[in-house]
């Protein structure tokens, strides 16, 4: 049963991964012959493509990526949690509320990016409401804030949805018992809701972390490519690849991969002791049956 799965995985996952890593050590398409034609073929470049990793542009992109990830994921967890708590309660119009909270998540990111671009443009809604004339979409610190706002709006519902699923499997008897014992709402939240919803919350945060570290489309559409203040690692890789610098693009891609792998590993190690225990025990059962 395992081998067809492995073949598919090898084709769609390992091959591109290994090919990208290989590409990161080669140079191609950069030399011209005497007649002005590009010399075909490729040359081993050693670590030359990785030289950019210590340069200002890459470090700036890495810093932006990290900043966006930390800030947006933190905001999204708080907002998502609040949304989930509201969505869980039974009241008239709950279905409508649930649906409307999920709308941002259903909107394609590129469309959301365009929408926020209109909101943030010089004579847009944001400036009118705030009574300011900030150039949100020009390169600068405001652009960072614009991206954070738009990304939080877009993905907080995702966290909300996953947390809601986690909340719904908490048996109501636990809450009834707490009520009988005279627990305050605050105590109930910290002592019952939060610990019991933790596995679902951690999965949501893990997904969001990995997603946020790859963020590309929102800064691209909202502010534009090659704007220093919002250029992320994915944006940098895209820019190199479109300028047919496949070597450096692959090198940066490999670096980004290592960065995401490292963060995920640390996250799973520190917080996720029970995150995958369920999967593991199920895997063990399957093996035992086999």
């Amino acid at each position: 049963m395992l081998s067809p799965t492995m073949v598919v995985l090898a084709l769609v996952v390992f091959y591109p991964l290994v090919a990208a890593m290989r590409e990161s050590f080669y140079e191609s398409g950069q030399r011209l012959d005497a007649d002005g034609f590009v010399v075909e073929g490729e040359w081993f470049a050693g670590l030359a493509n990785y030289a950019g990793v210590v340069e200002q542009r890459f470090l700036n992109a890495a810093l932006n990526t990290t900043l966006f990830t930390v800030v947006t994921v933190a905001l999204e967890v708080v907002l998502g949690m609040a949304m989930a708590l509201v969505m869980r309660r039974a009241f008239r119009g709950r279905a409508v509320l649930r649906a409307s909270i999920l709308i941002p998540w259903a909107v394609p990111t590129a469309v959301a990016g365009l929408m926020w671009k209109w909101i943030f443009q010089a004579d847009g809604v944001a400036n009118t409401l705030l009574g300011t004339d900030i150039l949100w979409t020009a390169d600068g610190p405001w652009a960072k804030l614009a991206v954070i706002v738009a990304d939080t709006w877009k993905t907080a519902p995702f966290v909300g949805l996953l947390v809601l699923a986690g909340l719904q499997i908490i048996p109501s008897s636990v809450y009834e018992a707490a009520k009988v014992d005279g627990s305050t709402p605050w105590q109930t939240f910290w002592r019952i809701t939060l610990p019991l919803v933790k596995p679902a919350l951690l999965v949501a945060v893990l997904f969001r972390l990995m997603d946020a570290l790859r963020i590309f489309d929102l800064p691209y559409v909202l502010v534009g490519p090659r704007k220093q203040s919002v250029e992320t690692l994915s944006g940098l890789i895209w820019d190199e690849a479109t300028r047919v610098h496949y070597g450096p693009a692959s090198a940066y891609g490999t670096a980004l991969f290592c960065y995401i792998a490292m963060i995920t590993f640390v996250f799973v190690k520190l917080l996720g002791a029970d995150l995958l225990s369920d999967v593991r025990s199920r895997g063990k059962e399957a093996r035992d049956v086999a």
Partner: protein
Amino acid sequence: MKATHIAAALVLGAGLAGCGSTTPASAPAEQEGGGRGPITFLGGKFEAESVQKIVDAWNAAHPDEKATVVLLPESADEQRRKLIQSAQTKSDTGDVILIDAVWTSEFAANRWVDELKLDTTGFLPTTIETVKYRDKLYAMPLFTGTGLLYYRTDLVKEPPKTWDEMKRICADVLPGQKGMSCYAGQFDKYEGLTVNFAEAVSSAGGRLLDDAGKPQVTSEAAKQAARFLADGFTSGMIPKEAITYKEEEGRVAFQEGKLLFYRNWAYGYEAAQKTDGSSEVAGKFDVAPIPGLNGPGAGTLGGNNLAVSAFSKHEQTARDFVAFMTSAAQIKAFAQTSSMPVARTAIYEDPELVKKYPYLPALKEGILAAVPRPAAVRYGDVTAAIQESAYAIVTGDKPVDQALTELQSALGPLLT
């Protein structure tokens, strides 16, 4: 614990697959014979209906060599990426391709397009410069265009010929016009910034590159041009939101009456002339060649050219199709249904068409004075370097002299 690692690695790998490009080493170029048969035309979304009419005419005359139109994405960056991708996989998805005027060198040097042997008489001479690489013809000009100065005829009697004249007119007119700024172009950090910067330099009498192809961006003219833009922003002659303008944002601002002068392509004429309420300046504006430092300016040449893919299996048909599409008869038929500027001289002298599109004489004057952007194999790197420095100039992040010196040294190694 092992399962954990693998699970994490798999999820990550799936994410990464989209990032790196992994085109395998290329095989030696295939030698294609001059075949005949059905072909595919990869075109942009410009004027798709009018283009289809030419293709229909071709199909009626060549039932055995029918052409099918496939539309590429709207944005030029996306088009370029698609075309390069299919070239690198040696795919024959497009026999005839529509390429931007600035890509000719790159496509020719990479042998992605074939050399052509076609007659280039009857085209505007400047457009022919954009279809050659090292003096050989690799494409045929189809669409063309250059920057025009849109101005308000209700406020300005005579369009300015120089930057100083423009400033003087603004000083006279603007005090009576609330919320109106003097001038804008496209100054967001994208290809439009390269166009506007190059235009300023050539309008000041300079060139980004000299005849030998070496960068000349620290010349006196380049400095004057850069100062015109930098001072324009600091003095408020150019509104500060113009730093976010691409073509459309500026066009809307002009139509809302927020700009006295606006630099744009010819396409903006039709929209600004609309009387359905979307334009407040309908009937109150006209176009003129752009102004310069000491006299009329020189715009940047834009446009799109037709090329034959090197990987076409029906190359002979593809060549004939290019000749057919750019023939005098078809171009005239095209111009009658579309306002997209075309590269044949006769169109600009046709009384019937001039009556329909009153901006044609100004446009012709502009195109003949226009300067193509640097023809570089690594144009992507060149334009990125220009945008980097020009953006620092218009945002005031760097002093003009420093930005230009940096640009000069950045361009050097890209143009060998």
